[in-house]
């Protein structure tokens, strides 16, 4: 059989494309929502960590919690966190996440668990990235905001964090790329992500060459798309 025949047999005749689409869908859901939630969480942690603590003593408690969070989630491997969340924490708390059905799309409960795990993990990294971004914004911006009578949180949200975001956008793009490739470990908790889909396909036909090479190209295309997206955003933000 020629390469083309194998390709057609794998993806069309044996309906491999369905598996691939499902895997792509799950991978994208985990990566996109993991990043968004991670960004919100990370920004919040970064803002908490940059509050000058001598002003309000209560802040110290939150900062210690934030430090602990970052230490734990940067200090353990992603796979271990995923396994602990799926096999330890959720069963212990007796939480059972149901599938979410949006129209004809089904988001599995395990996918949502993976989203939570990836959000927590990337949040820890993004927190440190954003902290660097916030520190890189001129101190005068915060002072000017405070001087016109805006509160500290308001100044942070509408002036400092947007500028910090602009400064860290290339690094955030990096984080997103790392995240989308790291989602391949989601198969540890029985999520059919992109890697798992191709693995299943290869295992069922004992034909490994084509599926794995196509898999690599899939990730490559995704990453190239993200790179373009980040570039576009940078261009738009450059005006300001």
């Amino acid at each position: 059989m020629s390469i083309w025949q194998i390709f057609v047999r794998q993806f069309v005749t044996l309906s491999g494309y369905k598996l691939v689409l499902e895997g792509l869908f799950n991978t994208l859901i985990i990566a996109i929502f993991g990043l968004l939630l991670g960004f919100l969480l990370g920004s919040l942690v970064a803002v908490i960590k940059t509050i000058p603590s001598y002003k309000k003593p209560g802040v110290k408690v939150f900062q210690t919690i934030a430090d602990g969070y970052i230490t734990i989630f940067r200090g353990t491997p992603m796979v271990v966190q995923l396994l602990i969340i799926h096999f330890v924490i959720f069963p212990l708390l007796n939480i059972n996440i149901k599938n979410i059905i949006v129209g004809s799309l089904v988001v599995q409960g395990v996918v949502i668990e993976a989203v939570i795990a990836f959000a927590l993990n990337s949040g820890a990294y993004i927190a440190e990235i954003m902290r660097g971004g916030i520190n890189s914004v001129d101190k005068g911006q915060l002072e000017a905001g405070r001087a016109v009578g805006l509160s500290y949180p308001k100044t942070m949200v509408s002036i400092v964090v947007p500028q910090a975001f602009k400064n860290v956008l290339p690094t955030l793009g990096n984080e997103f790329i790392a995240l989308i490739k790291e989602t391949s470990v989601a198969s540890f908790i029985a999520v059919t992500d992109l890697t798992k889909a191709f693995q299943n396909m290869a295992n069922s036909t004992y034909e490994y060459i084509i599926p794995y090479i196509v898999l690599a190209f899939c990730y490559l295309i995704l990453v190239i798309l993200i790179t373009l997206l980040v570039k576009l955003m940078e261009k738009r933000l450059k005006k300001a």
Partner: protein
Amino acid sequence: MDQSEKKPLIEVKYLTKKFGNLLVLNEISTNIYEGERVVIIGPSGGGKSTFLRCLNVLEDPTSGEIIFDGDDLTDLKIDINVCRQKMGMVFQQFNLFNNLTVLQNIMLAPVTVGKKRLKQAKWNNRILPYYNKFLEKFGAKLNARVDKKIAKNKAIIEKYNAMLAPVEEEWAKTKRTVEKAGKVFVTYDKALTQKKLKIVTKIENAERVIDRAKYPQPKTPMELPFPDVKAIKAAAEERAMALLKRIGLAEKANVYPSTLSGGQKQRIAIVRALAMQPKVMLFDEPTSALDPEMVGEVLDLIKTIADSGMTMIIVTHEMGFAKEVASRVCFIDGGKIKEEGTPDEFFNHPKDPRLQEFLSKVL
């Protein structure tokens, strides 16, 4: 002078600021009256900028009081944001918000404040009937509680006043005068000073509680300043555009600050402060970061604002400008106001030797 009868707009009492062990401001006391234009000059590192930044608590004073419009700004319990809305500040480095357009820069604070007030007014009007009903039922009880609180604190004051008298007497006895390097120092027993201070603080705290104690009042409906958020935005935009037109930069309304020249940036920063309709404007070396040819346009704008009767405090190195615009000039060096007076007196007949030396160098 009739000024001594008027109440000052800003009252600075024994303002002290330390950075670590470095004493930057050393018990500065001064009054600033409405309509005054105070220019502060002095050598760099003398504490001018720190003094100005302490006035709106961008720098936390180590000790002392700043009473602005009846509020003590150094008190942690007041809402500093509301007080700062009444104080415009212009920075040396302009500090325009880089992520917002010129128009948004000017509108941000008025819109935010307007929204907050609208929310408060709406909330007040919503809970008003319930609150008043509650007050009708339990008003007498609450009043009695306030009475009890006042009586208790009065008793505390009396008790500590009685304690204070003997301590103070003993403390006064330990006074010792020492002459060192031609200066006279007065020292007291340290432990007694601490003891006295503790008692005095307790009395002051009790007095403050009595001052703050309020009998609960029935709420009255608050008038909504604007019907909705849209109206707030429209009003803020109208005012911002009018201000921009006044400085001739209306066509720059929708550009980002990074495309503007230094002079334009500083004029917009001044307008941004004016948009809040402040009672006093603080200028922190507004022309120091500008190209020489742009200094004129900024100073002209400050002059026109001065002519409109705005109270101003200006830190500057422009002596000609100081002479022209000031109603009072202060010389700050070594954390103290060494000399102050009218421009004529100040520049033509300086008394302080340090000021004479300074003026001979810069004029």
